[in-house]
């Protein structure tokens, strides 16, 4: 035990950390240092081991080799609460909120405000309200968390970590569901924390975010540290090269497309609100042509996700007309939708996208089982071939295709969800945040794939909170505001500013407001 730490000793020092799951080695001899007041980016491809390193730091994984030291004192956490006691707060990649419990209870989980062991609900609500205000969350502290949109949940997760008053704040892809406005709000908070001497570890696959906040960058590849440099010596291209081991062109521009006849036609389509009376989507009409990518812009609560779910037959009580390839279709269940050639990649892979305990192969073929069975009997060989094909095309990183999807890294899970829908060879592809949590290399591959699918004649309806992605991929962007289409922008008109302005409801700013597909 050192009495006083040497003054130059870093806030956090990770030395020689290794970790394996069974005989799969995930981290090998990793060193990492974090200084007070520093925003330190941890980058790497999907499955590189970033979250694993973070989980060691958070006291989640306790069996690892190597050492951790905080302010010169060696620590070895046995559970997450010990990490919190040592001033480490973590926002995990997978949300760790308790769905049925209220916002206030979630905020104070593990350290409730009590007197004689009894929870002081009034006090908790009061404190919660302050944190909600801080993060611009417009919700009552007694609302159950599961009723919140994912983006709100993610911001709540941030509030929860901030409220711990930590010395070390770790954020594992905290913005994967946030829109530009919300991200900017977070960065302001990060700046304040940095100024207050908090050390921040930030994991992200978004290069613009990295450029915006990085003081220092460390890159992992295949569980090894390949580089660590001050931000000034690590431009985006360099980081990507470290990550991938080769050069990847970052800027993506879609091939010029020539959309032909309408494939998906929607008129006067309304979707009831999931939370009470009223409509989440109000008489929306739009059409997507063969080979066209139509982006759907809008802020949280605009109803974009509901529109996609409604079109896919996942919500009861929708009204309106839908036609595919000129044929009116009646879609009253996802099953019917799939038969009509629709596919929906949902925004939340964990709750509605994947069956976590099932294997990669089984998830891949789940939506197209008829094609993989004869008289109901499955054909495992064929399934395997299909899974292998997608895994190669999407560069899936997994120890084996028999592995349960739940054991994959976040980005790789997303790839499996995509693979499932590709396997159905859809005519109309509905994508809700298709690259959430996906690394740059893979993201680029997905962009190229989307491009190729469009070229092959699919009609694609795309939701993305990542503005560059939305702008780069979409031939047109319809912007929703409170369930109505407020404007439609073509490629030339669309820019971050025009989309955002429309999303906030300012019709006046957009000259083409009246034009509709």
């Amino acid at each position, binding site marked *: 035990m050192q009495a006083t730490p040497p003054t130059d000793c870093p806030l956090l020092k990770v030395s020689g950390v290794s970790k394996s799951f069974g005989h799969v080695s995930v981290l090998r001899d990793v060193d990492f240092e974090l200084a007070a007041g520093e925003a330190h980016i941890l980058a790497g491809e999907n499955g590189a081991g970033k979250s694993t390193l973070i989980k060691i730091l958070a006291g989640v994984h306790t069996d690892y080799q190597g050492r951790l030291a905080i302010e010169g004192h060696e620590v070895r956490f046995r559970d*997450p609460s010990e990490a919190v006691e040592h001033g480490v707060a973590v926002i995990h990649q997978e949300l*760790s909120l308790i769905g049925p419990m209220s916002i206030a209870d979630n905020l104070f989980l593990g350290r409730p405000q009590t007197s004689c062991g009894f929870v002081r609900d009034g006090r908790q609500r009061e404190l919660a309200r302050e944190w909600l205000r801080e993060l611009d969350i417009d919700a009552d502290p007694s609302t159950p968390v599961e009723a919140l949109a994912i983006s709100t949940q993610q911001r709540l997760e941030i509030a929860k970590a901030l409220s711990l008053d930590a010395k070390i704040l770790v954020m594992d892809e905290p913005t994967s569901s946030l829109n530009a406005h919300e991200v900017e709000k977070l960065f302001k908070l990060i700046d304040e924390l940095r100024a207050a001497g908090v050390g921040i570890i930030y994991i992200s696959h978004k290069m613009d975010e990295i450029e915006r906040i990085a003081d220092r960058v460390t890159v992992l590849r295949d569980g090894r540290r390949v580089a660590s440099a001050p931000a000034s010596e690590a431009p985006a291209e360099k980081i990507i090269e470290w990550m991938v081991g080769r050069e990847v062109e970052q800027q993506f521009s879609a091939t010029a497309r020539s959309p032909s006849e309408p494939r998906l036609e929607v008129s006067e389509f309304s979707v009831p609100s999931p939370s009470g009376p009223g409509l989440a989507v109000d008489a929306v009409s739009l059409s997507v042509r063969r080979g066209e990518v139509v982006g759907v812009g809008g802020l949280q609560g605009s109803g974009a996700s509901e529109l996609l779910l409604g079109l896919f037959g996942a919500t009861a009580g929708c009204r309106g007309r839908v036609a595919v390839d000129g044929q009116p279709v009646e879609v009253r269940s996802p099953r019917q939708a799939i038969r009509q050639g629709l596919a929906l990649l949902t925004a939340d892979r964990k709750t509605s996208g994947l069956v976590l305990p099932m294997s990669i192969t089984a998830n891949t073929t789940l939506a197209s089982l008829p094609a993989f069975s004869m008289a109901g009997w499955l054909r495992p060989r064929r399934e395997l071939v299909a899974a292998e094909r997608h895994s190669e095309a999407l560069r899936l990183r997994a120890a084996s295709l028999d592995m349960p999807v739940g054991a994959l890294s976040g980005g790789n899970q997303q790839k499996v969800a995509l693979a499932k829908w590709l396997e159905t060879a859809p005519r109309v592809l509905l994508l809700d945040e298709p690259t959430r949590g996906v690394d740059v290399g893979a993201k680029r591959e997905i962009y190229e794939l989307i491009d190729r699918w469009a070229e092959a004649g699919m009609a694609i309806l795309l939701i993305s909170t990542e503005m560059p992605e939305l702008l780069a991929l979409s031939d047109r962007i319809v912007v929703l505001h409170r369930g109505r289409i407020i404007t439609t922008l073509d490629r030339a008109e669309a820019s971050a500013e025009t989309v955002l302005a429309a999303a906030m409801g300012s019709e006046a700013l957009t000259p083409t407001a009246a034009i509709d597909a």
Partner: protein
Amino acid sequence: MPDQSPHKLVATAKAVLLSPVGRAVLALGLVLLVGVAFNADGAFFKTGTHRDALRQMSVYGMLACGMTLVITTGGIDLAVGSVLALVAVCSATMAIHWEWSAWLVVPLSVLIGAACGLGSGVVTAWLRVQPFIATLAMMVFARGLAKQLAGGMKVSTAVPQADGTYQYVDVPSLYRAIDARLLGGHVSTVTLVFLACAAVAYLVLSRHRLGREFYAIGGNAEAARLSGVPVVRSTVWAYVLSGALAGVAGLCQASQEQQGDPEAGAGYELTAIAMVVIGGTSLMGGRGGMGLTLLGVLTIGYLDKILSINAVPSATRLMLTGVIIVAAVLTQKRGRY
């Protein structure tokens, strides 16, 4: 806008009826309606019938209180019926054979129950055996122990002597007190004991930090752990409390039977679980509450009583029970979100 208020009222009424509590009340209402319709020549309208109905459901109710805590964590406690028997045997030995004072017998009974719960809790939370198996093991173990301690017979006021004869002793005053009626004979003491248990369970579940942790563990154990909830310790507590409440139930059972029967409480765990679930609490954990359980206890308790006062033959009774249970919960959809 005064013309809106009836509309609003209807909406409110609808919301209440569709809420979990509203649905549980509906289920109970349906059962009581059956009672009114088949009132066994007016027997259903006598206060004594209700006093007895409440007394009869009390022991099950105590088990259901503990079960609610465990189910909230996403677990299950199959051992409660056997723990009841074990405590009944032990308390009878202490109170009848050894003539110990109530000040010793009551706390020790609760403690024995809690110790069994501790066993189940440690095996399930710490050794990570599935709760179903861990408590099933405790269920057979406690039953065996009860039989062993009772020496294969009931522990009653006929105390076997060394020479093979029996000496008859008095029923201990503790037992008489528990089996008495209070408030002018209108309420059985065990009913009040049950209400006290329900109050304790309510306070723990809805007002205490521990209860909050039960919900968190049942809602998402991994997230709870990440948030610093001492998952193992809190889970163990849920089983300890369930065991302690089964201990209280065992004491009440022995008092009413005036003996400790090692075969007592067989199958009670299923009834207790059914009471919790029929209230609307999901076995998945993380949702529900004591209010719902109270309604569930009343629903099953009254169903049983109504069939009994009408002297419905057992085959018919079983069939009717099945049908009425389904009818009663039909409005309760499995919670999606």
